């Protein structure tokens, strides 16, 4: 497949705009601290934390796809293995950056390493990220510098990496699940949901990029790999949807205000469209239709669009996971007791938050394009396709 010059120019224009916007946002963030942020005293986490857990999920899921090739010898997926390995290399730094700008004292981030507090899921996660990242670098080196000839190394590294991404996603879910102060989070489902949701969005991202990048910059697409990933994606979306249904139904049935109110916020609140359009229509219905219908499920383009839908839907899900649960005050009357605009049950990201967020997405787009040009990502795929 040849690339499309017009599309490439448009792509880089979009990247440039996003990065410039991001730099403006970062300038505001660095010079004014958190004053321009809209997360507050009640909804203490917002867009950036949602982005952080989202990018980490993408990284985990993409790596699971890679490990299916290296560790479990799924030959059909060989053409996507390099892309699946590169995706965490891009997604993880984006996640780290998203959470870094969210810190009150960015300059103290190193304390996560120098002052480990291992009763904190947040700290446990970091060590798991670190261990995984080392495994990832080893695999990338072997694959791109040495052609991936050491099969045993790749097999075992893939297995270790797989365990680490499952653990870090579980810890990510537990970060929320252990919060007994937030009944809408508290429970045992989140660690499992995070693992599953990570796998789903990772498959969606890899299949989208595998089709999209060659369309843009040239290269070949492996139709068998795309169809295989599409089938897997369909199963994952359905299981994940069952998890979400279970969480929502049990929560609503309980009648406990601290559980019901955030769920009602998600379903019928002022930001209903994040769930109904983002999470449900784009993230679940559209991909299921595209991946189940005979005419579209074998078309790489439509499967890729389904993957993009899952990407968008999972991001919406992460927003719904973080924000509404925080909008419910811990004590009745707390919001009214604090005369501050920062003590509010409504959160919309500020311009600064959007700008930085868009910049981070722009960086991701730039990184994929550059890596695609510099490394033999899809040329290998083309040969094998």
């Amino acid at each position: 497949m040849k690339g499309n010059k017009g599309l490439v120019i448009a792509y880089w224009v979009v990247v440039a705009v996003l990065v410039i916007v991001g730099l403006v946002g970062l300038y505001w963030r660095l010079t004014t601290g958190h004053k321009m942020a809209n997360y507050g005293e009640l909804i203490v986490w917002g867009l950036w934390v949602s982005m952080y857990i989202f990018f980490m999920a993408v990284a985990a899921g993409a790596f699971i796809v890679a490990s299916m090739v290296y560790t479990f010898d799924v030959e059909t997926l060989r053409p996507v293995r390099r892309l699946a390995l590169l995706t965490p290399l891009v997604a993880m730094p984006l996640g780290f950056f998203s959470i870094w700008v969210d810190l009150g004292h960015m300059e103290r981030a190193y304390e996560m390493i120098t002052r480990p507090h291992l009763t904190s899921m947040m700290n446990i996660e970091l060590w798991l990220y670190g261990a995984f990242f080392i495994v990832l670098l080893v695999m990338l080196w072997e694959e791109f510098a040495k052609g991936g000839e050491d099969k045993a190394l790749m097999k075992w590294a893939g297995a270790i990496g797989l365990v680490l991404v499952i653990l870090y996603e579980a810890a990510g879910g537990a970060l929320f699940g252990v919060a007994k102060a937030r009944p809408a989070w508290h429970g045992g489902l989140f660690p499992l949901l995070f693992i599953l949701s990570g796998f789903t969005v990772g498959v969606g991202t890899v299949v989208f990029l595998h089709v999209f990048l060659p369309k843009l910059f040239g290269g070949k697409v492996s139709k068998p790999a795309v169809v295989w990933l599409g089938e897997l994606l369909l199963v994952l979306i359905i299981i994940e949807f069952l998890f979400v249904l279970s969480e929502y139904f049990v929560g609503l049935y309980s009648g406990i205000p601290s559980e019901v109110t955030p769920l009602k916020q998600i379903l019928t609140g002022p930001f209903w469209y994040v769930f109904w359009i983002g999470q449900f229509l784009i993230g679940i219905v559209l991909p299921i239709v595209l991946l189940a219908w005979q005419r579209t499920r074998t078309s790489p383009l439509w499967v890729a669009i389904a993957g993009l839908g899952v990407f968008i839907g999972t991001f919406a899900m992460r927003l719904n996971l973080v924000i509404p649960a925080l909008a419910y005050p811990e004590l009745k009357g707390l919001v009214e007791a604090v005369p501050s605009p920062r003590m509010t049950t409504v959160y919309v990201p500020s311009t600064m938050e959007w700008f930085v967020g868009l910049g981070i997405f722009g960086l991701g787009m730039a990184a994929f394009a550059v890596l695609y040009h510099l490394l033999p990502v899809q040329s290998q795929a083309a040969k094998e396709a």
Partner: protein
Amino acid sequence: MSVAQPVVAEKENAIVRMMKDLERALKKPPSERRWGMVIDLTKCVACDACTVSCKAENKTPPGVNYTLVIKEEVGTYPNVREVFLPRPCMHCENPPCVDVCPVGATWKNEEGVVVIDYDVCIGCRYCMTACPYGARTFDFGDWYTEGTPHLAPYETAPTFEYGEMRVRNEHESPVGNVRKCHFCLHRVHEGLLPACITDCIGRARYFGDLNDPDSLVSELLRERYSFRLKEELGTEPKVFYLT
């Protein structure tokens, strides 16, 4: 409804009594004292003197409230009444906020008070999500008199939280930190009661050593019915409410 009075208050002024309790407690090794607060809800009039005195003592910025009074109207007109709930940090025996801190910047000290090291806190706000009482706040760097020709002196005056003198400015701690009630430890260690205790006009708040059976707080808890917030969570707050 008759308003129950603390038995001891009739014999001796409560403030004087608590000061003596404090003096006695401070002679003990820190690990042998257990600071706690008792709030008599039948005496609270929701004047917010505690809120204001805390703000004056700790120079807290907008949105940062170590203590506040939750007011709720119950019933329907004309049969209504207001109920008030002063809410400082509960200084839980099992504080969920401490476990979740990724860098160990907050802990329960040997006197049982949950404290924060402003120079270590990275401002991730995970502890705020973990507190069941909404007792933790984030210092966004706001000022009450922002946008006026000069910041008011009361905002730029030094604070002495945790026994350290700090002048607040926009790029240094405690801006960017999570902040909360610390039972005015800097005052307590000097033999003074927390600001909210001394300034309570209804004498609804009491402070002292829960380990001392002769302290006023211990006596009140023996004599009166008390409860704690969200006991079912197992946090074991050291703030008790009398009804």
